[in-house]
């Protein structure tokens, strides 16, 4: 019989000055299956942190725990200065999230989606209006303001979903395979938005399947079978594994996987 550790508040200085996320021994267990197996990592303020791994390696599960929509089985996590075990709601105010399903309301119009999430995050009426105008211009969606999100092309939906996810100027935004299913040009456009956000000081935590995107990240972690097998800058990882590109690095590591997808 296993007892859950007595929950203690995080020690003073658990999260150092320049960091926004620190996870120690983060674990998720579904019965006998350990989806995420005691992973530890730190994410620096303002960086683009690539969170890679094959399907089933546990990336999405780990990300959901960090976002507070899945409970962790074990571990200590501090996000934006708050303990994940105790202050989920406060953390939620400081983070944005966009999943591979880019969950905007398809039966709401473009401006209505912006308004809804603006309102939920506590923006004031005039702030919402200002933000809506700004986004419509920036995303070049002015003509589509009154279109249902359902009718937008996939690439535009992704851009809109990303903009909505950072509408409240969060400290961190979590992106779960944000660019699935679109052409390279559209993906490039999306990454420009990511860079813009990072420049504004928003930390980006992103999972992806595209290894060219991994090259865009400041640092990259690679998960294999629920564990982090490597974590460093793309350049150092390539050096370490004697590879020309991240694709080779990824395959070298992913080959070690024993788990089925």
């Amino acid at each position: 019989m296993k007892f859950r550790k007595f929950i203690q508040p995080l020690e003073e200085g658990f999260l150092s000055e320049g960091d926004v996320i620190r996870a120690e021994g983060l674990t998720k267990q579904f019965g006998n299956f350990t989806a995420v197996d005691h992973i530890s990592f730190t994410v620096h303020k303002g960086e683009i942190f690539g969170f890679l791994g094959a399907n089933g390696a546990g990336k999405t599960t780990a990300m959901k725990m960090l976002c507070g929509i899945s409970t962790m089985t074990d571990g200590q996590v501090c996000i934006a200065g708050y303990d994940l075990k105790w202050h989920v709601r406060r953390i939620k105010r400081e983070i944005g999230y966009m999943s591979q399903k880019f969950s905007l309301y398809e039966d709401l119009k473009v401006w209505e989606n912006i308004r809804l999430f603006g309102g939920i995050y506590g923006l004031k009426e005039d702030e919402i209006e200002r933000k809506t105008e700004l986004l419509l211009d920036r995303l070049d969606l002015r003509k589509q303001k009154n279109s249902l999100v359902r009718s937008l092309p996939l690439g535009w939906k992704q851009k809109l979903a990303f903009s909505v996810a950072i509408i409240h100027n969060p400290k961190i935004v979590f992106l779960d395979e944000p660019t699935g299913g679109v052409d390279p040009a559209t993906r490039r456009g999306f990454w420009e938005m990511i860079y813009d956000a990072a420049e504004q000081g928003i930390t980006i935590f992103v999972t992806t399947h595209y290894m060219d995107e991994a090259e865009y990240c400041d640092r990259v972690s690679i998960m294999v079978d629920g564990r982090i097998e490597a974590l460093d800058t793309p350049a150092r990882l390539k050096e370490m594994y004697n590879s020309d590109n991240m694709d080779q690095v990824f395959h070298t590591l992913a080959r070690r996987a024993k788990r089925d997808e």
Partner: protein
Amino acid sequence: MIKYLIEKEFKQIWRDRFLLVLIPLLPALVMLVFPWATTMEIKSVNISVLDYDHTPLSAKLINKISSTSYFNITAVAMNKREANDHISSGVADMVIEIPNGFEKELVNDRTSSLMVLANAVNGSKAGFGTSYLNAIIIDFAAQMNFAQGAISLNTMGGISVEPYYWFNPSMDYKIPMIPALIVLIVTLLVGFLPSMNIVAEKESGTIEQINVTPVSKFAFIAGKLIPYWIIGVIVLSIAILVSYLMFGLQPKGSIFLLYGISIFFILGISAMGLLISNYSSTMQQAMFTMFFLIIIIILMSGILTPISSMPEWAQVIAAINPMTYFAEIMKLIYLKGSTLADLMQYIYPLVVFFVIIFAWAMLSYRKRG
């Protein structure tokens, strides 16, 4: 924050063509059609006559029976076996057996007996039919005594002619059914619609996006309940309006009181829908669970069968069933004109039901998997 959530729910309902048609049309149709169909009035009961007497008096009685709009003489039996055949083959619902010497006994002894057989497969038809027939016979006997001028009514063994009640042509069975039907249609709509709601967001994945936001459980559930309360008020108003226009029926009591009390009932049933939605992972699952619950709620609310004649376990269910109380309240306000003070005993259970189910719906909404 709730404001934006409510706004969003309304926009979504507004965009749903099906709901937009369903919400006003269903109550209107139900109120137009069902009061005619749910009438308890028994008409055209088929009777087989087994007359052993063959006297002018027995002929007169048969004539009297067949002259009412309730009975049709569809067969004449020569003996008991034939009469039984008529019932088992469905030719007749009832048999009236007039014994030999009926006239003689009635004239000489002032009393006589008849036998009435009824096919009780259709219980209410048998019950009502027997009562009607009894009343006709009593009336017949009374008339006869008057006609002979020999005996006064009092000597008829204290039988009163009260059952005339059954023949009162203006006694309209549609009227008491209407408040019950209003409750029924409100329950259906404000029960089923919310049960589809949260689970639909689960299926489309939008709930995940809501869950990463700091929306509180209270705001989330309240934001979903309030639109259904407004829908419930619209449905209630349409049903009340149609029953007024079609049947001229309006509540004897205060309509404001009616609307005021309806808040607790509508919110309670809607919260139950959301509760089911929380526990379901597919729309199908939510719908069938709700179906099951709504059937129990309707059957054990006393609107179709009296609660007092239910077995004890069913009475327990009826006692925790919010429809039991709201149906009673509607009936009392509509037909009797009861006031707030009269109705308090029925309002408390509605409030308690709402508070418990709302709290449960709030707690069972899980933001974390």
